[in-house]
């Protein structure tokens, strides 16, 4: 940071010396940059806009040619129709429950573990941290079947336990990111608190966690999205349709009479996606800050 502010003056003086030739070049560069930004931006945003616009198209639009980008007539009834076709509200609540539990578990457990790795001294710390790093590289596929067998043996298939339990045991990636963040907090804070007689848990809870809000928000959002969008987990563990999460429910809709309808599918997809987008906008400020400071960059 200091480097950047220091170099700022020299850079501006360097810039002010430029010739008309250089100005033309800068202008061309600006046009090029905006051209790419707008062109690619349209490509990236178009599927989203098309989804929302198709969600209010009249029935039968999916089978019409040529396909329209904008609806000829706005039909808002597609949305309540989705609620009538599948127990959408129930699936929404199921998903919200699973994701909330998973996020809570992940934030609590990962921050506890990360606190120890970042700020406490104990024998075996470096080796255990290496183990943690290597588990990040471990493909989940190898544990999938035995985990299923274990949950089945425990009689917990068709409950939310298999979908949420893992979050309470310090998921490695979140531990790693939080540790990186905790390392950036001045250690003197802990020392000072210790002098005042605070024990480790209090330092963790009252000093470190409040300072780590951006990192926690970032990890919370990632964890929420992973849980909300998870398809394979619910597919394997939930067979009772009442327990379905929204990810399964939105797909389930397609198997119903009329579920092949473009408008219904897009209305369901829109409602499925909106919570993630809202959360992202609420936490956007933190996420950018969090990605930069957790050292996700390396």
């Amino acid at each position, binding site marked *: 940071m200091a480097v950047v502010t220091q170099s700022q003056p020299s850079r501006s003086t360097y810039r002010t010396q430029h010739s008309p030739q250089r100005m033309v070049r800068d202008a061309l560069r600006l046009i090029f940059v905006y051209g790419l930004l707008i062109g690619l931006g349209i490509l990236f945003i178009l*599927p989203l806009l098309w989804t929302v616009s198709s969600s209010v198209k009249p029935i039968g639009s999916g089978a019409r*040619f040529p396909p329209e980008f904008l609806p000829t007539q706005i039909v808002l009834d597609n949305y309540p129709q989705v609620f009538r076709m599948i127990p959408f509200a129930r699936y929404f609540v199921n998903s919200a429950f699973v994701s909330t539990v998973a996020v809570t578990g992940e934030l609590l457990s990962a921050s506890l573990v990360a606190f120890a790795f970042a700020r406490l001294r104990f024998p075996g710390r470096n080796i255990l941290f290496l183990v943690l790093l290597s588990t990040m590289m471990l493909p989940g596929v*190898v544990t999938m*079947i035995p985990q299923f067998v274990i949950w089945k043996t425990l009689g917990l298939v068709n409950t939310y336990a298999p979908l949420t339990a*893992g979050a309470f045991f310090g998921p490695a990636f979140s531990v790693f990111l939080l540790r990186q963040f905790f390392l950036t907090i001045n250690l003197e804070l802990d020392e000072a608190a210790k002098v005042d007689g605070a024990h480790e848990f209090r330092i963790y809870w009252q000093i470190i966690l409040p300072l780590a809000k951006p990192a926690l928000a970032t990890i919370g959002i990632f964890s929420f999205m992973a849980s909300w969008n998870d*398809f394979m987990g619910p597919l394997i563990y939930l067979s009772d349709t009442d327990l379905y999460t929204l990810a399964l429910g939105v*797909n389930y809709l397609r198997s119903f009479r009329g579920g092949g309808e473009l408008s219904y599918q897009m209305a369901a997809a829109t409602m499925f996606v909106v919570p993630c987008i809202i959360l992202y906008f609420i936490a956007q400020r933190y996420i950018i800050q969090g990605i930069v400071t957790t050292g996700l960059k390396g």
Partner: protein
Amino acid sequence: MASAQSSLAVGGMARRRPFMTQSRREALVAYLFISPWLLGLVLFLIGPIILSFYFSLTKYTLVKAPEWLGFANYERMLTDPFVGIALRVTGTYTLLAVPLGTIASLLIALLLNQKVFGIRVFRTIFYMPSLISGVAVAIVFSWLFSHRLGIVNFILSRLGIQGPNWLGDPNVVLWTLVLMSLWGAGSGAVIFLAALQGVPQSLYEAAELDGAGSFRKFWHITIPLISPVIMFSVITGVIGTFQTFTISYLMTGGGPGYATLFYLLYLYRNAFSWFEMGYASALAWVLFLIILFFTLILLRTSSLWVYYESAGRGR
């Protein structure tokens, strides 16, 4: 400052006498803090991995206890034509999606790193698709890429291009899935962007004074300094794409023919459609070893192409 330091010194003094018990206590507390992870390591990782290897040596259909087979499941894999197909599909997809995805993310990050008006809006636009995954992507793109009625082919036809049968042509469908994966390049771009912003501006200025152009600055400063992030992104990309499942399960069901029979889809069918848990575990172990092999190769060769700064660079 001075008072803070002296109080620290006093704290240090006071702690010196019962030093051993103090550090032992701290270690004990630390182990309490990491106990959730340690427990999870045993319950959710090491235990299941061992169990998985045991299952892979048995015939196990969930209804009866596992029946010992030795390495028969692995031998069966050698003669199972679908294993070869699944490996080819998954390997091809990984070989296409990871490099293209990394390059796309990097280019978008470079673009988003430009200091122009309104850049924050563009950052949001490029990141938004990353918020959407799995089911929603599968459903939306099934419509967009529809051969006759899809809007993609309609736009192409307006431009005078005859669009392919995106999801129905076995020679095209993998490319379609790669194209779709690029739509999510924004998540990688955000990480690269953070890395780009960590490159000290002074290096660029020094290079400019030495007369380096944009390309040389990019190639000799930017790329080396962010190469650890590139490597991280390639490794996680390889691990992720080798385990592609949802998109093929929902969009193509492995078809047309077996053109998108991803390894994990075949494994899933063995395990959860046919309840061949033993054989599926063998499949899982082989995929595990393949991924491990590529990860280790990437890590081992990293010293050749990843630039690690010497230690001691302050923030």
